[in-house]
């Protein structure tokens, strides 16, 4: 187990380097220089040159990258081109929102998804089929469209939930919750469908296995068999899927945060790309990658804990 964790951590370093350098190179190729974007159409050539020198954009790409890397190793992610704020501070202010959104979604997906999946496996008749149909819908509907539909219905038509904006927990727990409901539903729909399907398939397969038959034959109660033994074994493939979904959710935050105007990393990613704000884009890439690495580590650990074949030789 320890070897696996070590391997993951070792993979992190080249991964971060690859992602950051790749993004750096690409962004530096953006036509229309950053300076023009910042100054708008009104900048004179002299002003453009001045900005370029000020932001260090007149140096070759690899020098800029090395400079940035050097900064990172000293704990600084540079400053935003747009407002000269420290990138780290911008990101840290927004990471809470994204993490809240993502973690809330994962919790909902895990709890609701696994429960529905188990239910569909144990009661295959009407319940199973209706769960199936709902899964289809969840998978098919694009999450941003779902978000807009939810806004149309709950915010505009019913006016019970806010259509945009984020309220901090410290300000008002109730409104914090309200501001999260619709985004979480939009983000969770697709992954929920996948988890329900996976759980159901895994449970059905486990319930047909030989050891379940043996446990039944030895007089163990059905509830104990399903909830303790079958679920424990079915959880193994489901955890793997959850890990992959968790990482995909990050991508989903870009569009969902944009639709619901939530001040998180996702919407920052979208806006900083159109603004050609290089340091911020770099910073977002690094943070996203770190989060993905942490997720992979967590998934591997949970998987190892669940699966004795990995834990004990």
């Amino acid at each position, binding site marked *: 187990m320890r070897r696996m964790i070590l391997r993951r951590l070792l*993979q992190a370093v080249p991964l971060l380097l690859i992602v950051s350098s790749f993004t750096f190179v*690409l962004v530096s190729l953006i036509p229309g220089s950053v300076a023009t974007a910042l100054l708008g159409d009104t900048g004179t050539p002299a002003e453009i040159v001045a900005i370029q020198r000020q932001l260090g954009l007149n140096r070759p790409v690899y020098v800029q990258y090395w400079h940035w890397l050097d900064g990172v190793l000293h704990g600084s992610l540079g400053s935003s081109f747009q407002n000269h704020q420290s990138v780290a501070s911008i990101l840290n202010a927004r990471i809470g929102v994204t993490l809240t959104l993502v973690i809330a979604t994962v919790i909902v997906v895990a709890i609701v998804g696994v429960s529905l999946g188990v239910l569909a496996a144990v009661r295959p008749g009407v319940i199973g089929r209706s769960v199936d149909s709902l899964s289809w819908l969840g998978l098919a509907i694009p999450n941003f469209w779902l978000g*807009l539909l939810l806004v149309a219905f709950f915010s505009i038509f019913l006016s019970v939930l806010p259509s945009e904006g984020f309220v901090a927990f410290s300000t008002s727990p109730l409104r914090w919750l309200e501001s999260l409901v619709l985004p979480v539903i939009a983000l969770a729909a697709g992954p929920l469908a996948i988890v329900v399907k996976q759980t159901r398939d895994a449970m059905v397969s486990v319930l047909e296995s*030989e050891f379940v038959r043996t446990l039944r034959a030895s*007089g163990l109660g059905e509830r104990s068999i399903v909830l303790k033994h079958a679920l424990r074994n079915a959880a193994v493939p489901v955890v793997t899927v959850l890990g992959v979904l968790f990482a995909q959710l990050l991508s989903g935050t870009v569009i969902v945060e944009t639709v619901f105007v939530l001040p998180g990393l996702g919407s920052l990613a979208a806006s900083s*790309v159109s603004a050609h704000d290089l340091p911020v884009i770099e910073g977002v890439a690094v943070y*996203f990658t770190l989060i993905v690495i942490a997720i992979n580590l967590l998934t591997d650990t949970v998987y190892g804990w669940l699966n004795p074949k990995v834990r004990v030789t």
Partner: protein
Amino acid sequence: MSAVAPVVGVHRVSWTAPVRELLRRPLACGALVYLVCLVAACSAAPLVAPANPNYENLLDVSSGPSLAHLLGTDDLGRDVLSRILFGGRITLLDAAEAVIVFVVVGVPLGLVAGYLGGRLDRLVMSVTDIVLSIPVIIVLLVVAAVFQGDLPLMVSLGIVASPSIIRVVRATTLSVRTELYVKAAEVIGLSRLQVLRRHILPQVLAPALVQVSVFAAAAIVLEAVLGYLGLDVAPPAPSWGSMIAEAATVIDQQPWLMIPSGCVIALTVIALGLVGDAVRDININRRSPTVLRARSIGSGSSQNGARAAEGTPNPEGSVPSGAEALLSVRDLSIVLPNAGGELLIVDAASFDIGRGESLGIVGESGCGKTITARALLGLLPPGGRIAGGSAMFDGEQLVGARKQSRVQLRGKAIGLISQEPMAALDPAFTVGYQLREVIRANRKLGRRAARTESLDLLEQVRLPNPVLVAGRYPHQLSGGMAQRACIALALAGRPKLLIADEPTTALDVTVQAEILDLLTSLRHDTGMAILFVTHDWGVVADFCERTAVMYAGQVVEIGGVDEMFRLPLHPYTEGLLAANPHFAGEGPLPSIPGTVPPPGAWPSGCRFAPRCPYVTVDCKISAIALRPGTEGRVTRCLHPERIGGRTTDVSS
């Protein structure tokens, strides 16, 4: 040598079979039709669209569906349907580009990594691991901002998403590579390329197609996301994503506008999903040999359909009942579901087991012995049911008993051990934990008492170090140890009858001997009766006091083993004993010509008649019931006296 005809009818599995399978799934067919129409309509948009998608009719703004505009108009008066058709060209073309890159990059890499293995495989795996960790959306956003046009975007998407298909193709290749028919092809002398092309690639196609359909759906949605963010086409050109963005701005005035563009995306994704699912289901049917084996047994004609209900009961008293019998089975019939309805698998089985006795049920594959044994515990495969007969256990009727009472019996009165001991234990819990759980479920014992009892049981089954074994997981045990643990599990409830379903078939012969000795001594120590299902006559001779022989779903002979081996009362028994290599002299082994008729193709009259050397005319006329023979034995043969006997004393 007589030619042997195939067992099942002429039904051929050819390449038209998948098409037929597809036609059997109306939803998937509909999905396929929808996709084809969509692609056709969008490609021919300039010809098919009712209006110019950019034509603004400011007099007819934001109207709902009408005859002139089937899907209404948007806030600039443009016809929504036309915009969807033209927008579809962008989205579908982009998705196609991504899919092509996805396949071209992913499939060869997966094949090569899976087939060649070694360092190349490790390299491909570490690269895909890294690529999987890259946040896709960042890459896409940046590429979208940097490069003009959608092609670089879709190419990057295809590359970045390829790890998923690489993994699937690699996994399939790895599993197919270990199949025996691939090894046979290599032994024949086919080159690596030939093996890949002829044997591996065909098996890889279907899982790869499933991945492609999943990815195509994701690509369409992703393209729509980019459209929503305004990154794919310049206005006023339509794309599905940008249409949703436009609709979002007027959502409070004209909510209808959200629907068409979103729906077409959702429908397309659903259609792709349905097609992918259908491909996966059809492929499972084609590939799995065990599924094929099960199907071939069950797909006979429904000749027995009319009789499926009851089977052929035996006349009263034909099976002498011991007054002391612990378990008394009479005319037990079991059916399983199959394509045409239900199929009779076990036909009026009857036998007794006395207290503390060891009874064998012996027969070849497909005779129904395993399913008979499991039916006693109510453990039939899904859809199977007992169609008639009775099974009296210690005064209680098992057939038709309420589920509650059957559950009560399990473990406490009747225990079970089965063929694959490793698979019979829950891999997620230690042996000791499972044992304690079963003990506490069957007897009211506290935690500490259960722990002591579990160690006692492990000792009783002669495991060398009970404490060590209790702390082990099933995968850490050898086959013999695992089977002993299963026996301990079965004994936990102190049952009166142990059903042993081929418990030593998967074990080495030296381990088998130990397990048989263990079971014999347990039987003597606890007075437990054992019902031993097997195909091995040596085991019967070693372990059983009496045995029942099954053939084609029927019990054909019951008797004590000494008498039966000396003088069989049924030609099938005689044939099996003769074919045993133990008794072979020089020259060929005597063998029973022909094959066992599968359920659904049982002949009327004696089922063994087509293969029987003593057959007479009256054997084939009508069904034959069990009848008493000498010394309390039972046989289903009309003419047991014709069976060639030994010169040794028959009557003792």
